[in-house]
C-alpha cells in the first residue's frame, strides 16, 4: 500500500486524521478508523477501502 495521501477538509482547512467512524449495515453497526476531519468529523473514504475491505464485509454480511 502506498503512503496515505494528505487530505484536507475543505470546510475546516485542516488535515484529516485517522479517527473512528461508525458504520451500519443490515441492522449491525461497527466502527473502523478512517480519514476524518478532527474538527467537523467529515469522513473521506478511499476507493481502495470502499471496493476492498468494505465491499468484502458487505458481502460477508449478506451471506450470513
Amino acid at each position, binding site marked *: 500500500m502506498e503512503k496515505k495521501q494528505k487530505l484536507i477538509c475543505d470546510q475546516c482547512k485542516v488535515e484529516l486524521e485517522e479517527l473512528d467512524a461508525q458504520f451500519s449495515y443490515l441492522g449491525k453497526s461497527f466502527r473502523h478508523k478512517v480519514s*476524518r476531519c478532527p474538527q467537523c*468529523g467529515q469522513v473521506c473514504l478511499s476507493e481502495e477501502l470502499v471496493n476492498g475491505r468494505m465491499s468484502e464485509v458487505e458481502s460477508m454480511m*449478506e*451471506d450470513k
Partner: protein
Amino acid sequence: MQNYYKQFDVCRERDIPSCADGCPFKMDILTVQERIAKGRFNAAYKSIRDCVAFPGIVSEICPAYCEDACVRKTLDASVQIRGLERAVVAGATRKTPNKYNLPARKKSVAVIGAGLSGMGFAFRMASKKYAVTIFEKSGKIGGRLAEQMEEARYMAEFDLQFKNEKYELKLNTEIQDIYPLCRGAEGQLEQSADAQSEEQTFDIIYIATGKGGNTFSVPIPGGCMKIGETGVFIGGEVCGKDMMHALADGLDIAISAESFLKAGRLEYPEVTEPTGCVPNADKLVEIPPVTPEDKVFTEEECMAEAARCIRCKCDACAAQCDLVAYFEKMPVKMRDEIFLSCKPAGSLVHKSPARKYVAACTRCDLMTEVCPEHIDLCGMVEHARHKMHEADKVPAAYRQYFIRDMEFANGPYAALKRTTGAPGAYAFFPGCNLGALDPEYVIKPYKWLLTKEPDTSLLLRCCSVPVDWDGNSAARKEEIQSLRQDWEDLGKPVFIMACMSCQKHLREYLPEIETISLYEIMQEWGFTPEAEGEQTNFSIFDPCSARKEEEVQAAVRSLIAASGVQAEELPKGDRHGCCGFGGMGSIAAPDFAEYVARQRMELSENPYIVYCANCKEIFCDRGKKTVHLLDLLFDIDPDGTKSQPDLTRRRNNRTLLKKRLLEEIWKEEMEMKPQEIQYSLIMQDAVREKVNKQKILEEDICAVIDRAETTGRRTLNPESGHYTAYNEIGYITCWVEYSPLVEGYEIHNVYTHRMKIELEAVWNGKKTETDM
C-alpha cells in the same frame, strides 16, 4: 414453503451410479476408477478389498453385473470394470492386510457352512475381533467355489485375507440342530437339554449352509430370529442367491449381526431402492473400448479404460442451472438454506445464507425443466423472494436501482397510454427496455403496425417484473392492478408484445389479458422485409422467456429467413438459461451475472440474432456482435456493433421516445420538458463504464457535487487538486472524485458502498453535530 421443501425428497443427487447399483456389494466403483485412473493401484486394491473382502476370488468369478448396467453398453461397450479390477488385483504390490491391535471381544459367533458366504461373514466378524467358530460338514472350506476356480488359488486368497485374523474351524462337523448352540434357549430345548451344558453356545449364529442346505426352520428369504438370547441369521446360497450375492449377504449380515450384539436390534439388511441416477447424456461420446494386449490390462491400458467412465451421477441441475453451478451448492443444500432464510422476522433464526443467490437467480426456469424429477427450485426461489421480502431480509440496496428504473419507466417522463381514436382491438406493448436502447425499436414497428391496423393503441410502461424480483407482494399487486387498469382504459385490447419477458410476466399474473408476440403478428399481418443478403452467418439465440414458445420461435425464424440472413440454431437450441439480465444479480452478485452472460455468449462463436432487448444489451456490452431481429427487419443497427447506451442515455431515450411518438403520431408537444442534467460532466470512457456498472446515473453524480458545492463538505487532495465528496442515494452511498472546470466538472472516479456512515454517532469521544 413446505410443499416446495417436500419436493426435494425425490432428489437423486445422492443416488449411486447404475454400475454400483448393479453390483451385489454396491462397490463405490467411481472411487475405484478414480484411483485406477491416477495409477494408484494399491489404493484401488484397498477400496475393493474393503468392499468385497476377497478381491482375489471376486475379480476371478464375478459375472460383472456392473458392466451389464453401464450406460456405455448401448453406445459403444461397457467400461470393462472387471478387467480393471483384475488388473488391480494383479498389479497391486501391497496386498497384505494391515494389522490392527484391537482388543478381543467377549461375544462369540458361530458360522454354519464354510462356503464363500460363511467365510465372508467370518472374515468381517473376525476382523472385529469376535471369537468366530466355523462349522463345516465337509472336510474343506470353500464350498462350491471349487466348481469355479482352482482350490489352491482361493485357499491362497483366504490365507492372505485372514493373515491377521483368527477363527476356529471345525471341519467334518455337521450341525443337526441349532438350539444347542443358542444361549439361554433352555425353555425351548427339551430334547437336547443335557447336551447344552457340554457344548459351547454363541451370541450370533450365521446359517450359510449353501445351495439346498439346512435352514434350521429359520424363515427365508431375509430371515433372522432370536432363539433364547442368540441372534440367528440366514443368508447366502441357501436363500437361493448366486455366489456373488451370497458373499455380499455374508458381508452385509455381519453389519446387522454387529448391530444386534451392540444394540440388541434384530434387523435383516434392508433391500435398497433401485437407483434413480440419470447420467448426463452430453458426456456420453463414443470412445472405443481398450483391448488389452496381454491377458491383463497394463497400467496405461487401465488408465485409458478408466477414463472412458463418464462418472454417472444425477447432476442435470449442476450442468444446466447457473445458480447451482456458480454458487457450487446442490439444490438440496439450497433448499435448506432457503428454508432457513425464509424464517419470518422476529424468529430466533437470524440467518439468511440464501439471501444473495435468491436475489440473483435469473428465473429462467431451466432447472425445473431439466431435473428428471422436475423439482421446482425455481418456484421455491420465487416464493422465497416474497417470504424474505416480508421478513425484511432483502438488502434495500439490491432493489433500489431496479425499482427506481421501473418508477421512471412508469413515470411522466416515459410512460404513455394512447389510443389512435376509438379503442382498437390491439395495443402495442413494447416493454420499457426496447425503447431505452433506441427509440427507433418502438417507433418503426409501431408505425408499421398502424399501416396494417390503424387503430392499434400504444402502452409504454414497465411490465412490473422488478417488483417480482424483489419479492414485494404488495407492490406487485398494486402494479398489476395498475396494468390491468391501463388495459381496461384502452378497451381491453390484445397486447402485441415485443419483449418475451414482459409476455411471460403478464401471462402469469394477468391471464385475462390476451397477448401475442410482435413477431407472430408481423408474420401474420404479412411483413415483407427487404432481403439484405448479408454474408455473416448468425446463430439464433432465443431468450429464456421464449423457451418452448414454438409459435414465436417459428415466426422469428421465418422472418429471419425472409430477410435473407443466414442463421443457424445453437447446438442445444433454446435449451439454455437467461442472458444474465434477469433477477437482481447484476447488483446482488455481479460476478454471477457476469458468469451467466459469459456462459451464454460462448454457446456459439457466431454472432447472435436475438429478439429480446435485454439479451442484445448484455451481449453487445460484452463485445459480442449481436443484432436484434428488429435491427434486421427495420435496418436500425444491422451491424450489431453499436455501443449500447449507458443508464442515463437509456432514460433519455425513453423520454425521447415518448416525445417523438407524441409528435409523430399524435402531433402533440410533450408537456414536460425532458429532465436535464444539472451540470455538464466530463468523464473518460473508463470512468463512464464504471459508473454504468455500478448503476449510477449522471443525476446521482450531480447530486453529490451539488451537495458538496453548496455545503462545502468535501475533502481536497492538495497533490492532485481533486475534491472528494459523497452523498447518500437512497440506500447506497456514492463517492465522487472530481475537479471543477470552467463549465461543469470533470469526474475522475466514482465508487459506491451499501454501508451507512453513521454521522450522528459519537466519535473519538466527542459529540459531533448531527447535521453534517
